[in-house]
């Protein structure tokens, strides 16, 4: 019986279900607690059933998701490295937006991403400008919806 990726995820769902059961019990009125308690109990029961099944049948067999030979052939480490890199870009871009706003962060992100992938200066710059022009034109000018200006420039 070994805990691996899938089992950890299901365990997380079990914990979420348990937390919601305990939280529901603390709600003062029956109308507030009835449905959350029933639904959280269902999540807990179903997740526990699945966890038991996964641990009994063996994690390895259960982790064999959709038969996709190409995917299986990619080493887990490679996949995790790629995921880490993608997540870093997503978080980095969001952090950039939070700090300096969409108008600055967006072209900088598009340009640096394309450059990091070995694309040319011109195509990277053109795509960066086009992306911000599209988003700015659509939201700020067309729909008069203000894009976030960034915490450093007075955004809240």
């Amino acid at each position, binding site marked *: 019986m070994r805990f691996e*990726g*899938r089992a950890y995820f299901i365990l997380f*769902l079990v914990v*979420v*279900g348990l937390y*919601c059961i305990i*939280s*529901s019990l603390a*709600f*003062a*009125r029956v*109308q*507030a607690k009835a*449905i*959350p308690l029933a*639904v*959280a109990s*269902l*999540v807990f029961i*179903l*997740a526990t*059933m*699945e966890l038991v*099944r996964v641990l009994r049948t063996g994690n390895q067999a259960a*982790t064999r*998701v*959709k038969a996709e030979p*190409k*995917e299986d052939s*990619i080493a887990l480490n*490679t*996949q995790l490295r*790629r*995921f880490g890199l*993608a*997540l870093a*870009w*997503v*978080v980095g*871009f*969001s952090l950039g*937006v939070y700090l300096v706003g*969409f108008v600055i962060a967006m072209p900088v*992100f*598009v340009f640096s*991403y*394309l450059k990091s*992938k070995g694309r040319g200066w011109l195509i990277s710059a053109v*795509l960066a400008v086009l*992306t911000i022009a599209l*988003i700015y034109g*659509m*939201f700020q000018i*067309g*729909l*008069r*919806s*203000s*894009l*976030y200006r960034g915490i450093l420039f007075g955004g809240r």
Partner: protein
Amino acid sequence: MLEAYGQALSFLLSPMTLLLMLGAVIIGLIIGIIPGIGGLIGVALFLPLVFRMPAETALTFLITFHAVTMTGGSISAILVNVPGTGANAATLLDGFPMNQKGEGARAVGAAVTASTFGGLVPCFLALAMIPLVYRLVIAFRSPEMAMLVLLGISFIAVLTGRSKTRGLASGTLGVLISLIGFQNVTGTYRFTLGSEFLYSGLEIVAMALGLFGLAELFDVLMKGHTSITSTTSKQSLADALQGALDVWRHKWVWLQGTIIGYIIGVIPGVGAETGTFVAYGQAKKTSKHPELFGTGIVEGIIAPESANNAKESGALLTTMAFGIPGSAIFALFMGAFLMVGVIPGPRMLVDHLPLALIMILGIALANLIGGIISLLAAPYLARATSVHIDFLFPIILCLIITGGYIVRNTMMNVVAVIILGLLGLLMKRYDFSRPAMLLGFVLGQLFENYVLLSYQVSGPLFFVTPISMALFAFIVLLFVYPLLKKFFRHWLPRRVRA
């Protein structure tokens, strides 16, 4: 009556109105394609622009714009797995797999055609069915609404994927997430973890952007794919036209979806998302090959797309004829009516009949114009998804993050989208059903509201009404029917033989 029709048609077919509608159709399609905005935000943002226009012009612009946003939303759902509007969430279940198989143009062609005719035909039904609709709307009170939503929730069982336990766990988790936030009935904050942001709960747009859009981007990058589609076949207008012909080939699926969408549209407060998922679930239930749903088949696109556009005529009718907004967006339309000096309600069909006809026929015309434009553009849009992921990743990510921000104008929503993206990725990797979760999320809060309201009004036996019981019997039948079918096909003949 005929005079009113004449007035409505002469207004709609005048060159200036057609030009205005063309502009509104193009803007509506673009807004629909861009994830995170959708018709609701679009109409809200355009309200200040149109309130100085004459009533006919302002309302024609708004209804035309809104009528095609869902057609646009289906395009992004199919091509990049990001539903443009919440109502397109069911479309991506088969639309995106079709695109991955190199059938993007065909899928868009089918979606656009199903949407166009799904929006067109019910307009004429709307005109003919006013007396019947009145009785239906009056008959549906909160107990019946609760049962109707429960019927929607029961379709989680249809969307579970390969494992019933994992599917049901996903669906119930979706219901649980929908309960996050402030509960009006009791004034209780639930599962907010002390965060002010969670007081108003999570948005369906954030759920769709995270669970599907961002999760899919992560997945493509992890697998090292070079583009969103796995094939590089060249797609042409013929492929899109083949998709259009598919709708004719599966006309019963289309008709079923259109009827479901129209009826759900007529009943206030149920929402387009319910209609599309019910239509999808019903198409799967009645299909000869239900196991293929979710793998990229055209019926899985036709059913929800016909339902989401058909809903609009029904909802507009309820709003105009009874002064009851059929959905959140039609609550905005009620505001627009009042802004231009028209009071919606039964008198509207008497005092402003030409205007009412302009709006209903306007939906029909908008769907037609939008359908033709989208069909012609389908092959070019489909080819765009075979562009190298290096170019698509930053652009799609910009749209997802901006869409996440714009819905609530707070960066916390972006954080929510990222967290939901990670959850979506894990669910995909470990084979938990994301559509079931989304359906649970859409209907969970609605179900609780109607149950509590019914309980307060009618006591614990609130569900004992003829319509509620009939709906409940239908729900039971949905679960019992497959078992009965199995029983009569396999077990009974064996016993008889023995």
